[in-house]
């Protein structure tokens, strides 16, 4: 875990050093294009996290093993946090580049918002079910449906826009090689950050469960509060 953390920090620092000092300044957008190296990796990792949560959910439903439910929960939880980051940075970028905080004719942004709104129901759904076994099962069913919804939704929104509006975001198509290098290092760093944070959250959950078990053995009367997280 320690090497993973160090690796994450090193990669992220290297990525943003590359992004600021090595990658060339965008001729049209200038300095504000640099947010590209933050926003796009955040969004991609967030989407990947949602789909990963769905894959773990399938495993949970097939095997009935609760550890897959924990993995699915942590994947989606982290992806939601990264998703908030992606929406905020996307909004800032839109404001800087086009003068509006929100643009409806950017299909990626719109699909991302819809997916984010759907996954925002994941925690309330878990919280509304008391029985932990049923909570895990229902959450997995949700994660599978939503995981399938991600590509369907992207296709539908992209389809809806392609013949009415020209693509506005074309800067990513003709990036020079240096910029691509910086971008891929940033993406790798963001993936590492995601994995590290997921590991930490899972470790914290496991330790808490273990601690509760030990305290129960000591005879302490623990009133288990309702929780959205897997026990």
């Amino acid at each position, binding site marked *: 875990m320690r090497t993973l953390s160090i690796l994450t920090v090193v990669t992220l620092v290297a990525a943003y050093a590359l992004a600021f000092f090595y990658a060339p300044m965008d001729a049209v957008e200038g300095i504000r294009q640099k947010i590209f190296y933050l926003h796009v990796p955040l969004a991609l990792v967030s989407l990947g996290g949602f789909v990963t949560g769905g894959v773990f959910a399938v495993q949970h*439903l097939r095997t009935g093993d609760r550890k897959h439910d924990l993995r699915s929960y942590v994947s989606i939880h982290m992806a939601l946090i990264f998703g908030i980051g992606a929406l905020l940075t996307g909004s800032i970028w839109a404001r800087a580049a086009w003068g509006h905080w929100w643009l409806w004719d950017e299909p990626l942004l719109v699909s991302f918002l*819809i*997916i984010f*709104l*759907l996954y925002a*129901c994941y925690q*309330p*759904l878990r919280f*509304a*079910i*008391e029985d932990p076994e*049923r909570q895990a*099962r*229902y959450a*997995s*069913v*949700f994660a*599978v*449906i*939503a995981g*399938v*919804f991600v590509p*369907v*939704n992207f296709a*539908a*929104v992209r*389809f*809806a826009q392609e013949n009415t509006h020209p693509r506005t975001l074309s800067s990513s198509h003709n990036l020079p090689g240096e910029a691509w290098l910086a971008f891929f290092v940033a993406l790798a760093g963001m993936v590492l950050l995601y994995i590290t944070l997921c590991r930490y959250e899972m470790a914290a959950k496991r330790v808490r469960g273990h601690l509760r078990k030990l305290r129960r053995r000591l005879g302490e009367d623990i009133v288990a509060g309702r929780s959205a997280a897997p026990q």
Partner: protein
Amino acid sequence: MRPTSALLRKELRLEWRTREAVPAMALFSVTTFVVFHFGLQKDSVDGALAAGVLWVTLLFAAMLGANRLFVSDVQDGALEGVLLAPIDRTALFLAKAIAFFAFLALVEVVAVPAFYLLLLAPSGGDAIPGLLAVLVLADLGIAVVGALVSGLATQTRSRDLLVPLLGLPLLLPVIIAATRATTPLFIVTGAGSLPGKWVAVLGLYDLVFGLIAVAVFDFLLED
């Protein structure tokens, strides 16, 4: 097929005797058209606005119905009885989805004429066959996803909150495709033809979510 038809008959008979969901949904639709009249400050709508008003109203009415879909099963413990019977669980889902489809069709028998009467600007061409095709395809998608979301949310404590929160984003592709498909039908200068692309999107959505629903519904009943 026999368990499905038996369960479907049960659903329809229950609705026939209680008359709970369909009249409420139909009344809700008509009231919403009146609300739109005042909210938009328009006596008649056409084109994209007409398609939007119609589909948003139908979607919200469907959410209202989806809320009630499993209530009687859970309240009176009828679900346990069905689960004890030696039948495939998929039959229960199919019965629910088909019943919900029938409810939606019944609601639209009232809501769509009311929409034509109250809000839609008269257009030149004949929009009815195209509209019917889109209604059937969209209703299929709404019925499948509605029954699934209802099954997911019914056994939680905040059922009536979760159904629309989960259902609306999941059904957004249906709304996108249905409004795009029906917009040319509602143009004042003469109804255009039905855009085949969007009909295909609706069909594809129905297929994908139909398969997913059948695949995962069993896990909601494993008690």
